[in-house]
């Protein structure tokens, strides 16, 4: 059985879907964060797979940008989570609804 691009894309889709479900369903902010990371990496996998399949480096270059942005995001996000925890003694995102209209 040959490892075609379809396998990669399917894996990427599964990972993205799991990430999205995690974001939508989990309440622990850290888990939500990790789910976001999973969605980003699913996208990275798709980029790399397409880059190899097309013989083009553009996708791989873009992956580095995504990794960079993800790292920055984690830094900011974790800081936010720590701050919220300090004030609310909880990181349950269902309790954080200050933006309710």
């Amino acid at each position: 059985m040959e490892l075609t691009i379809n396998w990669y894309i399917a894996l990427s889709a599964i990972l993205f879907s799991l990430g999205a479900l995690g974001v939508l369903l989990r309440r622990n902010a850290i888990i939500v964060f990790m789910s976001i990371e999973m969605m980003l990496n699913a996208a990275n996998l798709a980029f790399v797979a397409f880059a190899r399949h097309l013989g083009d480096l553009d996708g791989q270059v873009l992956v580095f940008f995504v990794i960079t942005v993800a790292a920055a995001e984690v830094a900011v996000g974790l800081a936010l989570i720590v701050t919220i925890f300090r004030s609310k003694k909880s990181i349950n995102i269902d309790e954080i609804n200050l933006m309710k209209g």
Partner: protein
Amino acid sequence: MGIFSIAPLLLVFPLIGVLFNGLVGRRFVEYNRETGEKWSGWFGSVMALSALAVAVALLFALAGHEFHAEIVVLFDWIHVGDFYVPWAMQIDTLSVTMMLVVTGVGSLIHIYAIGYMHGDPNFSRFFTYLNLFLFFMLILVTGNNYLMLFVGWEGVGLCSFLLIGFWFDRVNAKGEAMNANAARKAFVANRVGDLAMILAMSLTFWTFKSLEFAPVFDSAVEMFESGHMVQFGAFEATLGGVLTAITALFLMGAAGKSAQIPLYVWLPDAMAGPTPVSALIHAATMVTSGIYLIVRSNVLFEIVRESGTLLPGIGISSPDLVALTGAATAVFAGLIAFTQFDIKKVLAYSTVSQLGFMIAAVGMGAYVAGMFHLITHAFFKALLFLSSGSVIHGMEHGHHHISHGHHDDHDHFDPQDMRTMGGLRHKMRTTYIVYMIGSLALAGIVPLAGFWSKDEILAHASKNPGPIFFTVYIMLTVAAFCTAFYMGRQLKMVFFGKPRHAAAEHAEESSPLMTRPLMILAALAVFGGLLNFPFFSEAAYEAAHEAHDYGINLALEHWLEHSIPSFELTEEGIVHMPHTPTWIQFDVAAISTVLAVLALLAAVFLVYRNRWQTADERDPLQSTPIWWMAVLPFDTLYMKGIIPLFNRLADFLGYTIDWDLWHNFFHERVIRDTFVGFSNFASDVLDRQGVDGLVNGAGQVARWLSGGLRLSQTGYARTYALGILLGTVALLAYFLWPAIF
């Protein structure tokens, strides 16, 4: 021009007097009563004398100018379109005559007033007014147009008001401010005449496009010769008709100022003023303005007479109406004078009566005779008034003398009531003599001034044909009889018999400052007749006419003929004619003199022979119908008839028309309510419901919409995440849809 350029000084001198006494005179008097009064009084008197000097200079200037009128233009006054009125003085024989009377008699009265007003707290105010009066009177007689004449006319009216009300704070026993009321009465009565003057001037300008005397008279004569109609826009009128209206209005103006029927009522009340005022304004000068006006406008009156235009409804011409008004006033006022007990009121009615003589004279066309009587009357009536002032002064002095210690009857004593006098000929010798001269002159006893002037009027009335002249002659003769009678009564009451009051017993002669002007005036009253001394026969006149040498005879006539154009108007045009020669009419003179003497004798030796022993005695005439004159005359008519009607009309106009209809209905209901209604509509409907509704509605809609939309903002991160996901899916579906299918 030359010497005539000094004419403005005539007005400048009295004005300086006004400024001096009005601005600083009071300081002088307050600083030092004795010398202050001298300064204030003599300054005013010297200004009057200076004006007299200017008038005399102008007299000689005219004589050296062949008596031609000279017009001195001071400046342009009004210049609007066609309407041009200069501020100019007309120096001609007529105006110079008036100037001499005004400043001559005026100067004497100024000097007299220094003595008479001695001790009055408002001494300098009095001289301010006197000088102001001279100023306006001189404007009146020197103006070269009707508008300037009117300025003077109003100005002397103002001064008359101020001077009648000079003691405006005096109240009588009932607490009425009689002096202030008299002043107001004079002012209001004169307004009626002034209205007529304004109408007459408007009509004059409309007809002749000018208000200056010479152009008006010239174009009047021209229009009469050419027989053109007068155009008033779409209307047309005959010259005679228009001039009848103008002259009738002039008569009404003259009736106001010169106290003729029916407007004479203010003059007797005007006696509330200080006696020098009565002498100057209400006997010698101001009240003669009406005569001056008619003499000045003689051309207009003569054209009316010649054109034969009659007044509608009456059937006589306007000059005839003037003559009859004057004659009726002469008789009427003469009869009222019978019933008066106030020494000055008798003289006041006498003045009204004598003004009636003058008005009758000018109405008959005897302009020179009217002016002659004006001048002689100024002499003897000023003399009589000033002498009566001297009598009043003496009586006050006597009363002051006796009331030391007991003041109980102080308020009830009237120093002007003739019933409290009597026997003053021993106490006040000089006053008695001059009063006698004045009375005889007024009564028309030969050879005093009044005889000559009154006789000229009577002669003119008797020697002209027609029922009007005859009526006027009869009335004036009766008036002359009345004059002598009431003067006889007054002499008897004041100077003869026994003193009827302690005040009369202690009366004393006035100061020389007062008696000396009286002597001068007495001399003028004796010799005034020489001004226009008639010839004694037609032959003498013819001889003088041949030789062109009239001597002293008819001096005034020849002097005045340079300003009173002597012409006769005929259908062919103007024919210049000499004045009707006046030689003495022995029949007329004899009748009037005999009547006057009889009246005097009847008064003194018949009617009042044994009368006036005590002050509360009844007048024998009090039980005769003549006494009705005391209550019947126009005063009562006005008070009972016209003034209630007028008040009712004023009430109607004031309360019904103005308040109820105009204010309450029109302003409140129509204008205010409409406005308030519209404002309410604009405020409630347009603004609150319209504009505010729109704005608030927009807010409501926004709030309603946002209320719905805010539900979508749950605040849960997962909601937004789901939104993003679904959005992404939707976008993908949208873009990929055509690629897949």
